[in-house]
């Protein structure tokens, strides 16, 4: 039973990582940048949802929508002001700018909300499900987190495979010059990817804080790094990879915490990442890159 309940809580946190990783992977796939500010957009999303429900007395679903809208706009603004002018320059400059944006968001949140943690009330109200003669308890958060994650994955898969904009996104991430020649508005496609990534970050923020209710300006950074690891683990740039990577990482983390050592769980997660990358240098589902001479 213990094993099963650990597996289930691993699935829950893994689903959150998967949604965050999806944002990382899409942005990386299209603009080849490591967007270290993504974790902080998650934090902003969680704060907005918190404000909407606690201060503005909105219902939980409206809070999520407001937070998604806010983060979408935030993503577009960040991309337009900080990243767009740097397109085509070295990847390190963009990386440092992303770090600047990350500092900015964290410190803005610190000024507005203070450093004292806020207690986030879960958006999924109701009693936990009890199965198998009350031996196995599954919280509502777990069920909803996992199902929302699956729904998002399916939607994103459908969006990138079947719609015209989604196909444009894939074309730009494959070869942006060729895409431009085919009449795709590359800049707009990249902005749109940021918008979608940030919208997903808002959802991830609400899911994260529903599972772990402590909300601080630094809430997003560690899950951000872990989810980034998950994206690399699954093969960065690949949407199913983000899903597989996120969920596996969550399960490994919970199992490491339960059966090996709670203090060393981070070290174990990162060690597994290193081993996977050594065996498959582009991640589990990543594409092989051949070098031209």
């Amino acid at each position: 039973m213990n094993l099963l309940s650990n597996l289930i809580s691993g699935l829950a946190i893994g689903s959150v990582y998967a949604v965050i990783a999806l944002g990382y992977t899409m942005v990386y796939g299209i603009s080849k940048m490591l967007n270290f500010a993504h974790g902080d957009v998650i934090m902003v999303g969680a704060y907005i949802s918190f404000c909407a429900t606690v201060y503005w007395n909105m219902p939980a679903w409206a809070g999520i929508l407001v937070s998604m809208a806010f983060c979408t706009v935030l993503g577009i603004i960040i991309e337009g002001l900080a990243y767009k002018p740097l397109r085509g320059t070295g990847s390190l400059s963009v990386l440092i700018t992303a770090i600047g944006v990350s500092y900015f968001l964290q410190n803005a949140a610190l000024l507005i909300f203070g450093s004292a943690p806020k207690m986030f009330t879960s958006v999924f109200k109701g009693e936990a499900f009890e199965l198998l003669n009350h031996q196995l308890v599954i919280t509502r958060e777990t069920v909803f987190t996992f199902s929302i994650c699956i729904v998002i994955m399916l939607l994103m898969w459908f969006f990138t495979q079947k719609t015209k904009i989604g196909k444009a996104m894939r074309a730009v991430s494959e070869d942006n010059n060729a895409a431009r020649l085919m009449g795709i508005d590359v800049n707009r496609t990249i902005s749109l990817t940021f918008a979608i990534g940030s919208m997903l970050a808002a959802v991830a923020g609400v899911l994260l804080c529903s599972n772990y209710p402590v909300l601080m300006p630094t809430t997003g950074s560690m899950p951000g790094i872990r989810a980034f690891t998950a994206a690399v683990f699954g093969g960065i740039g690949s949407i199913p990879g983000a899903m597989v990577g996120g969920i596996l990482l969550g399960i490994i983390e919970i199992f490491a915490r339960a059966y090996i050592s709670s203090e060393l769980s981070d070290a174990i997660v990162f060690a597994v990442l290193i081993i996977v990358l050594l065996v498959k240098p582009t991640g589990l589902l990543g594409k092989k890159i051949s070098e031209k001479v």
Partner: protein
Amino acid sequence: MRKNGKLVLSPYKKNEITAYLVVVLFFGIMASLKATGVLSRSLSGQLIPIAAYMIMAVSLNLVVGISGELSLGHAGFMSVGAFTGIITSLYLAQAGAPTVVRFVVATLAGGVAAGIVGFVIAIPVLRLRGDYLAIVTLAFGEIIRNILNVVYVGLDRNGLHFATTSDIALLEGGSMILKGPMGAITNEEISTLLEGFILVVVALFLAQNMLNSRTGRAIMAIRDNRIAAESIGLSVTKYKMIAFVVSAVLAGFAGVLFGLNFSSLAPVKFGFNQSILILVFIVLGGIGNIWGGVISAGVLTILPEALRQFSDYRMLVYAVVLIIVMLVTNNKSVGTFMSGLKGKLTSRKKEGGDDSEKN
């Protein structure tokens, strides 16, 4: 090199001399300001960390700028150096060694320890490329920090005792040196500004000499075109390994200097954010430009202090400054303007028959 009786310096030498001059000037001014009491207490307390960050900038530049591989875990090497240094220093203190000897031995021990860790990490890291390599260095940085969280070290008359839990049976008069997540809490502050200055010069000297050597040119050739370099017989792994290990040793030195400046130090200080901070130094200083990184390490450590008048807003201002600097330095029209300006200033000299560039 002499030419027509005039001393002509190669760009390398010029760069090198400027670097040393800047460092000597900086520390000379700071030391005299500190002695006369002009410097505020918070700022004079920053001087040794600044020296440590300057060494870190040199160290990271060897990997990122010279070797061309992004490392996001350099604080890990720094922490290995710092805690090895603290253990060594306290052990020697018990043996009754004078402060200077303790510092020197601690520095060497920290450098060696960080070098060994760097070597072990480099074996898997150098098998990867590009962003994947960067992620693995990030992962190793976090692993080192995580492992340091469960290291407990005690010291008594019988010597050092290592354990992964806090229950170490110590003889009477013994004490705990490292306490897992709390880190070192009974450390003695023995770093001095002079020692910091000497270490910065040593780091610069090592880095500059390596750059101007056969090894340095091989490393840069591999950075610029790995396949071409490989095809003329350079061993990619060997040269990248040299750069990585030398960089780790320097980071270890910086760690010792940093660690022995605080009475208490926790492993959490050497997280991902610390690695990023150093990366920011060298990117703003100009990647691959050793002395640019050193200057920007100094400026960017003082900047948050100088922004104290903005009180709560200072980190926000810091973030905005960071973004604006990145945008401006990468802006094409600003770039054209600057190079145009530079061209106008130097054009007169060129007409004077300077043919050194053609050869």
